[in-house]
């Protein structure tokens, strides 16, 4: 149905032009789901945009043929191309929150799209829209259709987006990271829906994602991309099961397995990969400094008893009074000294709130916290000079906003040393900061540069270095790698595992990804809607979870089960 | 008592007007910069109000086109024996706008109202001890001392109808809250108040039963205030209004060049002068001379007078429309001293010599206080004076300010030299002496901010006021003028021009007191 032959795309910008996609060929048959996988910057979205004719202004197709059935897409005039969009090819975007026009009802948007391509009456259009919503699983569609987009949950909204893309029975739908913004449970349902539409309606899908689990679960064929070039292509079981190319192998090795725990990700070297090991002796100097600080013993034990957090509800509109929203409900938890406790739950379960309570960024309504037996004062009560300010450190999720883009790395790293009076002399502070950079695997020249000159992975390394420079006892990691590509994630997880093991840091590791949690934590706790559902050693948990909710969670997490030999 | 000089233009016109027959009837639209505050003739003693109300109300006497005192509601008046006062014989058959008759009671009521506490015209009756009703049509005004000018001085004392005022609760002028008389009127004048929208528009229509013959041919007169001079000029040039006063001096030439429009440039009875701080021990705004006040030395004051080139100020800033002045009142008014009509001539060298003689060869700096929105081009004149004085080494730093705060600053003595304009209410030389030359007391010398004091002048004031023989009176006035000139109490600069602009087909009479009389307006 869709045939892409030798596609190359060029992006023009102030330093000249870079080739985003080079000589990519792929074809998608009716009813086939073709996965496009690769790390960020591999050119997946560019290919999708090129097919739709929606390349950004600076982009330009330099060569290659794009044919849909017997229509040559590149030969179309802008008017013809626009008429084709929605009629024969549709597209779905990543974030359902922003994909729908907030000021128009779902009905208005559906009817408008239908009338754009078919001359049918408004009533007919509405009837077809309602039927479509029913088909994709929105209960009571007839009344729900008149609702506004903000009245739908994330998952439901993505279903509406799919309905919009589907309503004009296109031959091909390009889905760009359709499930990345969704929770695991909802992601599973959406992927099933896509599977059903492909087989039942014969719609061809191009499924663009960086999540190999999603590809494994639902795609028929897959193309692995790196730097705009096709690394490998073929039926999914073969490509993922027996990867031919070294890059694919490395990619698969970096995927945290759900079925067993590795002591460390074994990342084979891939040519062209710029791995810059920090100079060994500088790293050792930082290590000695840390060892001198934390002493021999492991990090402090953290106990939380009946911690409850209530937020004054968002003023829902001008009319209603505020109702309170309970984020955490009498959570009691204890982290053994020097161990890693994994905290897992869907978005909105309160896992981040818990970390923020420990970090005194959120004020608990009730409950008590203790660090090695001593009371850990909550927000408001914890004075700025309280020793726990130094002992408890946190690594945040979004690498792009956790570092102040106006400061140099040397300033960012020097701040804790100066603040906690660990090192009076400015020169010594700079030396120590460079040493710590080496310890986290970055070269000393990074010190003079600004955060925006680093990749996501490197920034997280800097964030970890900042945390270590206050000689912490307790490290809180709030989804530190969920924004990173799989291979980078593996390196960061290895770093955290090594540092935790070597300095005995008590760590609270938060993630929505069970596979990642399994690799990191000795104990595990599962949160649902602010309540602790289950806690215990992780190996026993993964052997057979006690709570039904945990079991469902485990079942729905897409796992790469192609009998792949262990890494 | 008027000689040829002032106001020639007015004289010529007044004769022709009497002969011209009223042509086709017209609505006459005219504008001015400020709206009369009130329609109550006794509430505010200010030119804009009195000028407007002179079209609606009438006094016992009135002033003609040449400022001569003419009979109005009083047909004749004679001095009572041995200067005890004046008897006024009232005109019979006069009716107010609402038809009620006019008689002596109305005069008595208006007098009581005029001297009441809330009234602002009490000062006119300072010399009046009592008013006696002789009969229905005769009234006596008894004065504490012989007052030869009394009839002329009450030309603006307008008579109200007792019945109408008392019925409508306007027996007294408004104190805090307005009365019926504030926005309504019932006079005997040639025009009736048809509509009054304060600050926006006031409409007058002719009073059919007016006792005098109407010389105008208007069917309706509409007054609108226009604050911004440029907008006012545009209103005239676009034909929306028929007459406006004043227009900026610099636009006179342009208006005259346009066909269909004309300008009447006469002189107002206002002399612009510089005053000194006679009672200031030291200069208040000087950077370096803070221990003495050079202006106390008459030679320094004379130097100031000689350093100012009034001819050039007239040519450049006043476009030649002003008239150099030598005394506190303009030439041509009664009591003007011909003897002292020479002003110190412009001689910077002599000025520097005088300064040297007085011991200020290297000059000094001082504060010159001026209004910026009171007189025509007041701020520009101040800056010109300052630059001329700078040329002889005395540096004035000019502080021009809106008039709203100006009088307080002068009363508080915040100046070393100040600009002042004075228009004598009684159009006689005694007026400026009473207010500007006499030593400041509760009632006299109230505008003598500099605190100038001279026993001889103080002594001469009373005799001047009561001297009946004009020749003897003039001798005394000449002596006063001589002292003021010799001591340079003030430095008179020029008589301010009066600029009226109108359409070609409009004929008016321009009176030097800047009163605009509708009854002499014809639109042909």
């Amino acid at each position: 149905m869709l045939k892409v032959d030798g596609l190359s795309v060029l992006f023009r910008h102030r330093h000249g032009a870079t080739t985003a996609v080079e000589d990519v060929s792929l074809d998608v048959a009716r009813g086939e789901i073709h996965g496009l996988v690769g790390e960020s910057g591999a050119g997946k979205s560019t290919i999708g945009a090129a097919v739709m004719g929606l390349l950004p202004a600076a982009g330009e197709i330099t060569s290659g043929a794009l044919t849909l059935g017997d229509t040559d897409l590149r030969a179309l005039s802008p008017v013809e191309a626009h008429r084709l969009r929605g009629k024969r090819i549709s597209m779905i975007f990543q974030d359902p929150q922003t994909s729908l026009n907030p000021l128009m009802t779902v009905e208005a948007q559906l009817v408008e799209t239908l009338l754009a391509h078919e001359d049918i009456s408004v009533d007919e259009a509405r009837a077809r829209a309602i039927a479509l919503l029913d088909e994709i699983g929105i209960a009571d569609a007839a009344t729900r259709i008149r609702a506004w987009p903000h009245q739908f949950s994330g998952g439901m909204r993505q279903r509406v987006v799919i309905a919009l893309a589907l309503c004009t029975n296109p031959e091909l739908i390009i889905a760009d990271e359709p499930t990345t913004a969704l929770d695991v449970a909802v992601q599973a349902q959406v992927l099933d829906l896509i599977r059903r539409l492909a087989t039942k309606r014969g719609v061809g899908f191009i499924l663009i994602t960086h999540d190999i689990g999603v590809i494994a679960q639902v795609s028929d064929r897959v193309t692995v991309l790196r730097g705009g070039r096709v690394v490998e292509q073929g039926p999914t079981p073969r490509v993922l099961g027996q990867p031919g190319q070294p890059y694919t192998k490395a990619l698969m090795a970096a995927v945290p397995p759900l079925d067993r725990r590795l002591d460390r990700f074994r990342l084979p070297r891939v040519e062209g990969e710029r791995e810059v090991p920090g100079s060994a002796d500088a790293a050792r100097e930082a290590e000695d400094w840390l060892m001198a600080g934390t002493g021999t013993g492991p990090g402090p034990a953290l106990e939380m008893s009946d911690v409850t957090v209530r937020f004054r509800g968002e003023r829902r509109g001008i009319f209603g009074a505020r109702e309170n929203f309970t984020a955490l409900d009498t959570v009691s938890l204890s982290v053994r000294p020097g161990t890693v406790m994994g905290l897992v739950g869907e978005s909105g379960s309160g896992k981040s709130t818990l970390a923020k309570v420990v970090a005194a960024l959120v004020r608990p309504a009730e409950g008590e916290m203790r660090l090695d037996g001593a009371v850990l004062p909550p927000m408001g009560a914890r004075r700025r000079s309280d020793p726990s300010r130094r002992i408890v450190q946190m690594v945040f999720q979004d690498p792009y906003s956790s570092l102040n883009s106006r400061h140099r790395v040397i300033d960012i790293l020097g701040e804790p040393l100066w603040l906690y009076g660990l090192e009076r002399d400015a020169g010594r502070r700079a030396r120590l900061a460079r040493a710590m950079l080496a310890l986290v695997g970055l070269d000393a020249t990074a010190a003079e540069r600004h955060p925006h000159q680093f990749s996501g992975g490197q920034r997280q390394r800097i964030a970890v270095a900042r945390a270590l420079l206050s000689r912490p006892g307790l490290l809180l990691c709030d989804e530190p790698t969920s924004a990173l590509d799989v291979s980078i994630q593996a390196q960061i997880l290895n770093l955290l595992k090594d540092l935790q093991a070597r300095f005995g840091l008590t760590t609270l590791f938060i993630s929505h990804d069970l596979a990642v949690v399994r690799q990191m934590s000795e104990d595990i706790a599962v949160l649902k809607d602010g309540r602790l559902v289950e806690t215990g050693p992780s190996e026993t948990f993964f052997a057979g979870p006690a709570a039904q909710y945990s079991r469902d969670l485990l079942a729905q997490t897409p796992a790469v089960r192609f009998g792949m030999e262990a890494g | 008592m008027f000689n040829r000089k002032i106001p020639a233009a007015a004289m010529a016109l007044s004769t022709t007007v009497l002969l011209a027959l009223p042509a086709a009837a017209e609505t006459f639209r005219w504008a001015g910069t400020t709206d009369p505050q009130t329609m109550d003739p006794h509430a505010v003693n200010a030119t804009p109000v009195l000028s407007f109300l002179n079209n609606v109300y009438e006094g016992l006497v009135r002033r003609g086109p040449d400022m001569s005192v003419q009979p109005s509601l009083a047909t004749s008046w004679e001095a009572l024996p041995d200067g005890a006062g004046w008897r006024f014989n009232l005109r019979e058959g006069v009716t107010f706008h609402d038809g009620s008759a006019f008689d002596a009671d109305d005069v008595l009521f208006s007098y009581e109202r005029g001297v009441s506490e809330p009234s602002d015209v009490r000062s006119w009756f300072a010399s009046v001890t009592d008013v006696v009703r002789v009969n229905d049509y005769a009234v006596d005004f008894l004065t504490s001392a012989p007052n030869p000018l009394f009839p002329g001085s009450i030309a603006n004392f307008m008579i109200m109808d007792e019945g109408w005022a008392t019925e409508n609760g306007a027996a007294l002028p408004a104190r805090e809250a307005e009365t019926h008389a504030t926005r309504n009127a019932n006079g005997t004048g040639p025009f009736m108040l048809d509509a009054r929208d304060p600050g926006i528009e006031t409409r007058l229509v002719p009073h059919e039963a007016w006792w005098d013959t109407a010389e105008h041919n208007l069917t309706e007169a509409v007054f609108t205030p226009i604050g911004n001079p440029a907008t006012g000029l545009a209103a005239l040039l676009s034909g929306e209004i028929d007459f406006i006063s004043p227009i900026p001096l610099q636009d006179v030439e342009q208006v005259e060049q346009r066909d269909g429009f004309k300008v009447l440039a006469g002189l107002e009875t206002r002399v612009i002068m510089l005053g000194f701080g006679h009672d200031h021990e030291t200069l208040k705004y000087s950077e370096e001379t803070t221990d003495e006040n050079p202006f106390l030395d008459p030679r320094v004051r004379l130097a100031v007078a000689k350093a100012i080139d009034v001819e050039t100020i007239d040519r450049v800033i006043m476009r030649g429309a002003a008239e150099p002045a030598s005394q506190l009142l303009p030439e041509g008014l009664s009591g003007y001293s011909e003897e002292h009509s020479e002003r110190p001539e412009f001689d910077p060298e002599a000025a520097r010599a005088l300064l040297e003689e007085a011991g200020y060869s290297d000059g000094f700096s001082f504060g010159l206080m001026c209004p910026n929105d009171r007189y025509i081009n007041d701020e520009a004149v101040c800056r010109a004076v300052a630059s001329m004085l700078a040329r002889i080494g005395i540096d004035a730093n000019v502080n021009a300010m809106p008039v709203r705060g100006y009088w307080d600053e002068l009363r508080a003595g915040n100046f070393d030299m100040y600009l002042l304009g004075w228009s004598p209410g009684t159009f006689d030389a005694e007026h400026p002496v009473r207010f500007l030359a006499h030593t400041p007391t509760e009632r006299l010398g109230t505008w003598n901010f500099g605190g100038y004091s001279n026993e001889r002048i103080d002594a001469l004031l009373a005799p001047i006021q009561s001297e009946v023989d004009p020749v003897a009176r003039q001798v005394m006035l000449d002596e006063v003028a001589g002292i003021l000139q010799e001591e340079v109490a003030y430095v008179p600069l020029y008589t301010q021009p009066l600029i009226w602009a109108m359409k070609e087909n409009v004929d008016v009479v321009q009176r030097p007191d800047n009163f605009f009389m509708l009854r002499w307006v014809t639109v042909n």
Partner: protein
Amino acid sequence: MPERGRLARLMRSEGVWLFSRSPAAILAAIVTVLIVAGALMAPWIAPTNPYDLASFSLFDGLLPPAWEEGGDPRFLLGTDDQGRDMLSAILYGARLSLSIAAMAMAVALVLGVGLGLAAGYLGGRFDAVVMRIADVQLALPAILTALLIDGISRGLLPRDLHDDLRIAVITLAIALSLWVNFARTARASVFVERQKDYVQAAIMMGQHPLRIMARHILPNIVGPLLVIATVDLASAILLEATLSFLGVGLPADSPSLGTLIRIGMQYLLSGEWWILWMPTVFLVVLVVAINLLGDFLRDLFNPSLR
């Protein structure tokens, strides 16, 4: 560890490239630099010193520009009613207007950003109070603020001190009517930055709130503030002209551009067109240039528009 020119270096590299591509911005920059330089060097390049009363005489009053017939080569752009050389008056006037506008801007910047930053960061009652004060300020027209301050300074200060403080009075009046823009913008930006992780991290580490505001948040909200600054600089100059028109402006013997225009207004129809038009055109060119620069900065700092 003060971070020195890095921020500037970052902007320049990106800015310079963008700058070179938009002709309007280049033209605006050249014009602004020329005018500002001309104004600052007025005492040296202006033919005469219009503030020195002895340097000009009434005889030279109302002369047309040199190229018109009747013009005098000594006065390139003609003279005003006082005989002041228009060119020098405009240069000195521009210097005064620019310095007033710049000073007013500085005061408004410090006051507005300070209050806006604190209101945004502390929130709660302090924020409500600051916003209500902003409401009060917005409700008062600029002329009233000028009157109030002029009146208060006249009341409190000794008389002679009051006169040479007139410039300070006007500056303060203009500053007071401009600070609200800065406060609102700063407050809005702080709301956004506060949620970001680098601020949360600083709070968690126990840094002093003032330090968080000054070293962490402020450098990140410089963008929008700079845009407001250029636009407000233009409106500050215009405001000074309007205040002069309403009679509350500067004394006539040390004229600013606004005063020159007010004086010029009186000669609008009377044939001496240059007294009004020379300063007005000068003011328009200056204000347009500054606004164009403002637009360029807004696009520079608003990546989505690039």
